[in-house]
């Protein structure tokens, strides 16, 4: 009975990711260093053999999960959660994740739209949580992302969110040089000219 086998059992039966601290607490008869080493053995063991599951770090802990790509088979016998996020939910979630703690008014200023409904549904899905109240007049509620957010999106911690710079680098839209002439000619509108029909009676 090796320590890594013990740890494997513990993870196998755990309902949520377990942090190294928690693991050390549970397996108090072992040294932290031993546990760390055994954990490494398990992580490598999954990677070495061609395994369908792996031990990953999420939400500040470790958890066995199926590797991405097997969902076609897995969902044949268990129901996939219809984890469908609308663009506005994802946007709001991103703003809360990157800017937390943040108030509803701040989210709305950034998005330019009312976000009450989206925030409420994110709260109901437990992806966002109320952190408390801000010490400014009116004491508005402040929001942040939850542990479930990290778990569902498979993030180790908030620091492992892609940085906004990285995201910009991913962007495929080329950046246009400042140009003198804008492609206005094509649309036949020029500065200061006509307003649209919108407000005609």
């Amino acid at each position, binding site marked *: 009975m090796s320590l890594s086998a013990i740890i494997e059992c513990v993870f196998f*039966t755990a309902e949520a990711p377990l942090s190294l601290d928690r693991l050390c607490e549970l397996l108090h008869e072992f040294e932290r260093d031993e546990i760390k080493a055994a954990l490494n053995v398990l992580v490598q063991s999954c990677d070495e053999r061609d395994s369908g599951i792996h031990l990953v770090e999420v939400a500040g802990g470790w958890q066995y999960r199926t590797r991405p790509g097997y969902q076609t088979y897995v969902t044949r016998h268990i129901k996939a959660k219809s984890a469908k996020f609308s663009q506005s939910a994802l946007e709001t979630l991103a703003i809360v994740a990157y800017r937390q703690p943040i108030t509803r008014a701040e989210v709305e200023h950034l*998005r*330019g739209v009312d976000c009450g409904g989206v925030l409420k549904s994110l709260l109901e899905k437990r992806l966002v949580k109320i952190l408390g109240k801000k010490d400014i007049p009116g004491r508005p509620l402040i929001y942040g992302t939850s542990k479930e957010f990290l778990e569902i999106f498979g993030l180790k911690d908030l620091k492992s969110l892609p940085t906004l710079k990285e995201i910009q680098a991913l*962007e495929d839209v080329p950046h246009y040089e*400042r140009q003198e002439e804008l492609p206005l000619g094509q*649309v036949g*509108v020029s500065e*200061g000219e006509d*307003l649209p*029909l919108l407000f005609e009676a």
Partner: protein
Amino acid sequence: MHPGREGVQHHGRDVEPALLDGIGESYSVHFDKFDGPMDLLLHLIRKNELDICDIPIAVITRQYLDYIKLMKDLNLEVAGDFLVMAATLLQIKSRMLLPQVEPEEGEEEEADPRAELIRRLMEYQQYKEAGMVIGARALLGREVFVRTCSDPELLAAQNVEGPLEVSLFELVDAFRILLARIPAEHFHDVAAAETFSIADCINEILSLLQDRTTVQFDELVRDELTRERVIVTFLALLELCRLKMIRIFQEGHQGGIWFVPSVTQESVADSLLTSLE
């Protein structure tokens, strides 16, 4: 690429020709549902391959308003936020048409009426993209799964409860649902947000007494020495005293007022646990 975006397909023939004027020739409207005015603006900037840092405001304003008109024509609900942005765009446009006021020393930067909008758009763009990057991850319960069962013999072992897991929102929501269920006459609002109520003050005193055994009256009013605050605090103390939850002491005439909890929780807790059986 655009998760969750509902594409509303619409063909040019149903749209007034006047509207399509100047937008493009064989213009078949692929009408996306935009998540707000910022989203629509970004779309227009990309569609026209414009530099976000130097938006030709007339073009953008015109196309923006065309879209709103189109939404109305298609009987789509135009949220107020779109109209607010329309006003902002028109305002910027009008300011750009006004003769340039000679910029004073030091405020050259803000001379461009578009500056604030551009800043907001660039920031919004970042979060919009961040949202897409996040949404493209392998999600738990969708692409990735965890184990769903435990050995039956192990399931039998779980009778001791560990740390509680519940969110603040669930707590408030439970209360909201409860209040929605009970008859109206029981309903009175829970917390007055604007003014400091006696109930607030009682709560504050109770929280203080959770950490300490004695509290001085002055401490409660030190930070906010207003007539209202003093009266409310005093009434709260009287109420707590009436409920026999605290005892009040004074150090002689005109001396400091102290109060202490009148019961220790443990002693009462025991008697209660038996009474609930």
